[in-house]
């Protein structure tokens, strides 16, 4: 085997760094062009509706089902712990705050990356490999405006809505378990929740989180599809990358956002 010298390793490291910067730069230009470039087609609204359907409506089932179950589990777990301190009434508050601040935005973003994000990457990658993107460009239609932009906007719009739906059905699932099964008094369940949940600090901050996640996840998904190697192997690699990168980005950003929003500094 040929030995790699230290210098060669440094060179490879530098190469990787340059490649990374190059990809970042390309993805930023890609995003700016897609969102702010000149539009070449008039029927943008139709395209957006179509994408809202395949990105948002199609993700609804998984979001609702996971939301209900997570709410129910939170309620069960919370109850058994809170009961030790004799404050079972606080279970509503616990479920609501956990969902609104953390699980709603984060789990929605993770599910969205797996469900809609990977589909977006695969779809665009497939269009690239079958030369549909090139052929759009040759017809004189900018694929960034025609293919990419509606998908980006659909993702930006869908995910915050999905996150709110997730929180609502989660709280509903939690209330079912707590009130109907564990026998928490209904009035104190809701009153406790309403007293401790602040609209601005909890609901709006959660929505802001999910807007940020929507931006990052959709951007990663669409860019990976657009930038992938146009072979079936390249597409499958890009799809995996979408899910991994998007999940890591969501969890990392969640920490930063939580520190900014709820940390006292």
């Amino acid at each position, binding site marked *: 085997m040929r030995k790699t010298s230290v210098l060669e390793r440094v060179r490879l490291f530098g190469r990787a760094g340059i490649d990374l910067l190059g990809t970042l730069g390309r993805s930023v230009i890609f995003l700016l062009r897609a969102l702010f470039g000149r539009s070449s087609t008039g029927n943008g609204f139709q395209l957006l509706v179509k994408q809202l359907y395949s990105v948002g409506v199609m993700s609804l089932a998984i979001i609702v089902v996971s939301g209900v179950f997570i709410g129910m589990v939170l309620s069960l777990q919370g109850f058994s712990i809170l009961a030790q301190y004799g404050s079972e009434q606080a279970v509503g508050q616990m479920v609501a705050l956990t969902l609104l601040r953390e699980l709603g935005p984060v789990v929605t973003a993770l599910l969205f990356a797996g469900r809609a994000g990977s589909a977006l990457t695969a779809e665009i990658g497939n269009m690239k490999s079958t030369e549909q993107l090139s052929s759009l460009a040759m017809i004189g239609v900018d694929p960034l405006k025609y293919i990419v932009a509606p998908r980006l906007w659909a993702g930006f719009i869908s995910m915050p809505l999905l996150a709110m739906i997730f929180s*609502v059905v989660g709280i509903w699932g939690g209330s079912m378990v707590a009130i109907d099964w564990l026998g928490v008094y209904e009035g104190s369940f809701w009153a406790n*929740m309403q007293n401790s949940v602040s609209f601005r600090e909890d609901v709006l901050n959660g929505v802001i989180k999910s807007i940020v996640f929507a931006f990052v996840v959709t951007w990663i998904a669409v860019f990976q599809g657009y930038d992938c190697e146009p072979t079936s192997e390249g597409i499958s690699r890009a799809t995996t990358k979408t899910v991994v990168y998007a999940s890591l980005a969501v969890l990392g950003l969640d920490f930063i956002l939580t520190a900014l929003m709820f940390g006292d500094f």
Partner: protein
Amino acid sequence: MQNRTLEVGVGLFLLAGLLAFLLLALRVSGLTVGADNTYKVYASFDNIAGLTVRSKVTMAGVTIGKVSAIDLDRDSYMGRVTMQLDEAVNNLPADSTASILTAGLLGEKYIGISVGGEEEVLGEGGTIHDTQSSLVLEDLIGKFLLNSVNKDQAN
């Protein structure tokens, strides 16, 4: 046409999202839309330890409002608490008592109001003068210890 189902689906989705937002705002966080149906009452305490903004204000166990602000009165060095009370309960006698209570042993702090006997009622911007401060566990233990020491010395 296929386009129609698509648009209906998207429309329902957007509506569901909007509905979720409204539910979160009104049902979960208890946001009231027209905030006009409350009035402001002040009370000063020696120690408000543990009381926070949005703590409840109750009377006979029923929530009638919440704490909207807490600040320090520069002149008297007391904690001044601003409460928003329901307009429906506008017949509180002016000599009512406000005390800071704890729900359970370790639960959250809230303000309990007990009724006085005067004819005059508290209006917008009124002040409750008769207040009872938060029970601070450390002080209580401190007092208890001191008492027993004193007793020992007396013996």
